[in-house]
């Protein structure tokens, strides 16, 4: 017994064929290794080259740089399937590169930067990360203090970043730095090569969930990089970062859709086989109604997510609010479903050998990453009131 996905008028046959391809990639390349990678706290570097060969790292970008010329909707379909490999951290690590680290570079970077960083990242030869959060600045991007001072043809960068996904092994970082005065207009984005002298990776951080993705704190001590590594214009960094959060939030929403599908699948399989008082759990009205609620929240999330993707694809002005609504709702819905499925599995759900408690831990971060639930509410409120 598995969840009968509801048809969506946003998706066509091509996206259905693409979904099948990603699902078979996950069946062969990810799920069989999930336990091992989660225990190791990282997935092998060659997964980037395998994902690149399947066209998954540059899906949305210009074919000129090796991209797939796809859409945000296609990105949703990819994320829904990639997350079903029972290792959320692995999907997070791949998307931290393909969407989080590359989107500003793809939209605002110079051809030289695209040639040097975007194209090899799409080919899976380089690993990228995005560096915004600092010990004193998370959702409050305007508060960052990592400073880049011009010195001739170089920027000299000093400061600290934290909670950086892919941080321990990134080859380059799309780094938010302060090039000007305090406040939002003093921020720029540069491409920072991690072989620059003065750069150091601090601790690899132990996390509640997403354990197969590496997360690190990073230190910059008078690191010199060429001013040519500036993305777009100086002082525009805040706008670039905020305008590209939409992609990150969409990814999290689509991840939530995929996780809910996976969990409801696992739940239906378990509930139909598990006999209690002489009949399967699926015969008990309480579970029939709870599955109904889970499925409805799943479909509501999917609809909000696809609508947001469609608006982002159309570069519609309301795309950012739509994606904040999707992400706000998705985080709550996936946490609800993970909790219900954990309860359904009783004692088995408490055992680390099943994927159920892992998903339960992983989704806790969905109301924090890519802008907290509180920030999504502020964004929506600003458009409402």
């Amino acid at each position, binding site marked *: 017994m598995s969840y009968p996905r509801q048809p969506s008028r946003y998706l066509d046959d091509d996206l259905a*064929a693409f979904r099948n*391809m990603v699902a*078979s*990639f996950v069946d062969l390349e990810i799920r069989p290794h999930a336990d091992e990678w989660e225990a190791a706290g990282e997935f092998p570097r060659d997964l980037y080259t395998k994902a690149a060969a399947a066209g998954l790292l540059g*899906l949305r970008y210009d074919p000129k740089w090796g991209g*797939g010329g796809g859409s945000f909707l296609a990105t949703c379909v990819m994320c829904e399937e990639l997350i079903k490999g029972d290792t959320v951290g692995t999907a997070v690590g791949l998307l931290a590169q393909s969407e989080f680290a590359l989107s500003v570079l793809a939209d605002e970077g110079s051809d030289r930067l695209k040639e040097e960083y975007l194209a090899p990242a799409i080919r899976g030869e380089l690993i990228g990360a995005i560096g915004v959060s600092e010990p004193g600045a998370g959702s409050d991007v305007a508060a960052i203090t990592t400073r880049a001072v011009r010195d001739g043809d170089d920027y000299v960068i000093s400061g600290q970043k934290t909670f950086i996904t892919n941080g321990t092994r990134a080859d380059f970082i799309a780094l938010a730095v302060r090039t000007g005065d305090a406040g939002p207009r003093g921020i720029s984005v540069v491409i920072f090569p991690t072989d620059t002298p003065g750069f150091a990776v601090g601790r690899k951080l132990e996390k509640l969930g997403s354990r197969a993705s590496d997360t690190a704190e990073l230190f910059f001590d008078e690191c010199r990089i060429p001013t040519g590594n500036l993305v777009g214009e100086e002082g525009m960094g805040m706008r670039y970062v905020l305008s590209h959060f939409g992609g990150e939030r969409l990814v999290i929403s689509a991840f939530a859709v995929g996780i809910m599908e996976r969990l409801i699948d696992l739940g239906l399989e378990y509930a139909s086989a598990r006999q209690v008082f002489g009949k399967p759990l699926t015969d008990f009205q309480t579970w029939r109604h709870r599955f109904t609620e889970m499925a409805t929240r799943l479909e509501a999330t999917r609809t909000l997510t696809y609508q947001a993707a469609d608006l982002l694809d159309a570069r519609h002005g309301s795309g950012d609010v739509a994606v904040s609504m999707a992400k706000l709702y998705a985080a709550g819905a996936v946490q609800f479903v993970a909790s219900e499925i954990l309860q359904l599995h009783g004692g088995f759900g408490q055992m680390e050998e099943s994927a159920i408690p892992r998903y339960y831990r992983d989704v806790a971060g969905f109301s924090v990453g890519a802008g907290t639930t509180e920030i999504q509410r502020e964004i929506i409120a600003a458009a409402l009131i």
Partner: protein
Amino acid sequence: MNIAVCVKQIPDPATPYELDDENHWIIRPEDQVLDDTDRSGVEVALQLAEATEGTVTLYSMSPSGTLQGIRQALAMGADAAVLIDDPALKGADALTTARVLAAAMQQEGFDLVIAGTESTDGYSGIMPQMMSEILDVPCLSFARKVDAGDGSVTIERQTSDGFDVVEAPIPALITVTAGIEPRYPTFKGIMQAKSKPVTTLTSADLGITNTVHQVIRSVEPVAARTAGEIIEDDGEAYLRIIEVLEQAKVV
């Protein structure tokens, strides 16, 4: 190098096959998928075409349906497809299938023909060899690796205890094993597949008339497995286990 690849659309193996009550043929839905064993053949052809600046043309004899299976192979990177879709060919035997596909390849031209070892829904395993006879080209079977040379082709033929290296002049026909890992169709490939040329022919277009059809007289279900024997261990269960194993002639 102009490479012809035999591919087949089959009902999705993930769903149970149904047989027609009257003639016992597999009921083929509109949505058929690419036979998984064909992916390796497409992969080999694409690698050879990339190395020789060649082209890859798919050949298939089946109802077109939604072309889903053919598009899967086009999405991997094949350039074009020739499909023989003719109700008169329903139930054609392996020799007729070989004649039809060979005629289409002769009409279009080829340097190399690549096929899987056998289809997943028919399992005859003899069609490629028949085609090589009709096309009058050497047949190199069970290739686990293929290299194209200047006017020749060399394969590693899988054997039970290793492999043989076999070389033949082109044109030639090769059957490939499933050991060659196929590429994934990318999103770009899926989008491009829609605009690639698919030519549909009938047996009359190929001048083939006297087609032979198999007749399936009857189909019997596989005998149900009998329930096993549960041996309760009262301390001497091993004696009964040895007895059962001796009866089965395994000890």
